[in-house]
């Protein structure tokens, strides 16, 4: 399994930076919002966490469809599927992990910079980083289900996003509300953050199983 993680990371870094793309898109999203809002710094600071979260969610969608498709096209997927059930689930889990390390983690690391652009306070930025750290893995894990369903489709990109966006809504809701709770006083930060973490754990357990089932079913 470590071998798989190493291979996927090597491919991601070798051929043109998945990480960089996510961050760039993230930047682009965050950069155009001020055009809509106008230069009202207070408002920007207020909606900052929400924008960061939406940007991160959308940025994670890029390239998600290739998660299994690349392996299918060169025939690797067949060999990955020739494993018993538990090993297959573990394989999917590791692939999700590699995907998150290559695309999700850079988003988390880029968040402070964007927080600066949005005029957010240090506390608020920290809260967003923490929630992104807990929430983006969940997106990778749900994404795996969509990617597995669409593995056979040549133009899966959009379909994957459509299928998983509704499922990602709870992650978004609790991620944003935890970020807000950290800065607005009466609301406590931990309850929504715990729920977010619980959702992430839930998807980390469920996603690989569902994706493995879908992959088994799609083999032809």
């Amino acid at each position, binding site marked *: 399994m470590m071998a798989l993680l190493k291979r996927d990371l090597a491919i991601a870094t070798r051929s043109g930076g998945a990480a960089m793309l996510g961050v760039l898109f993230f930047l682009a999203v965050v950069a155009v919002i001020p055009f809509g809002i106008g230069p009202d710094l207070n408002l920007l600071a207020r909606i900052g966490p929400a924008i960061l979260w939406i940007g991160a969610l959308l940025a994670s969608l890029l390239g998600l469809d290739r998660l299994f498709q690349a392996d299918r096209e060169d025939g690797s997927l067949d060999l990955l599927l020739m494993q018993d059930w538990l090993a297959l689930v573990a394989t999917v889990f590791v692939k999700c992990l590699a995907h998150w390390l290559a695309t999700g983690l850079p988003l988390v690391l880029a968040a402070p910079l964007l927080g600066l652009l949005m005029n957010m306070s240090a506390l608020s930025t920290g809260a967003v980083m923490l929630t992104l750290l807990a929430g983006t893995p969940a997106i990778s894990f749900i994404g795996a*289900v969509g990617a*597995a*369903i*669409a593995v*056979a*489709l040549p*133009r*899966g990109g959009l*379909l994957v996003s*459509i*299928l998983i966006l*509704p*499922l990602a*809504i709870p992650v978004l809701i609790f991620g944003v509300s935890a970020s807000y709770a950290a800065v607005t006083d009466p609301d406590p930060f931990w309850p929504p953050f715990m729920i977010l973490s619980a959702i992430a754990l839930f998807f980390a357990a469920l996603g690989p199983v*569902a994706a493995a*089932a*879908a992959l088994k*079913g*799609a083999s*032809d």
Partner: protein
Amino acid sequence: MSDTTAPQGWFTSLANPTRFLALSGRVLPYLAAASAVTLLIGLYMSFAAPEDYQQGITVRIMFIHVPSAWLAMMCYSVMAVASIGTLVWRHPLADVAAKSALPIGAAFTFLSLLTGSLWGRPMWGTWWVWDARLTSVFVLFLMYLGLMALHKAMDDPARAARPAAVLTLVGFINIPIIKFSVEWWNTLHQPASVMRLDGPTIHPTLLYPLLVMAIAFTLIFFTLHFMAMRNEILRRRVSAMRRQAAQSIGSSEARP
């Protein structure tokens, strides 16, 4: 590598496509007639009903809005049951049922969104708000369309069946959210007034036409669903026969 022969039994024989075609062919005319008659009665009663003292004539939107909202949810439930059929019994008819319910459900959902929106303009002063009920119905609509896209994207119906069933079941969580959103969250939308444990709180002059319309919509749903299932079965047969013919020509000519 396991034995995947379908379990033989009364259930299997009942759900046999050929038998289904025969049976539904006999039932359909009656069903269609019944839906037409109920719909006419319902429409008559709706227009005969008195205007609401608060809402005026716009209350009549209710007779379309509420039944279509109910049907939108019922249709998804039918699909969820059919999906269990696909996953557990692997029966082809279950997949046919789920797939052919999709566009009908999407249409009812759209109707309920549309009428709700038309009603919201005079009542709330806006076409659309992002409250819990409206949003969850919108998500339902998206899920119908997403599933339709999934079916369309897979050229082979057999390959779409299982992923679509998994997805349908995952999305079923949305149905209780729609139903109870008005109670769990503070929304602009009406709380339930008909389907309540302590009995309906709505005035009978409005209640009876509503119920008749609901029955009419249900009958229409089943009529359409049966027709769509028959079409889907026939469509699959035609494509099967064409492919079959092609392959036999291809291989027999090539190898005398």
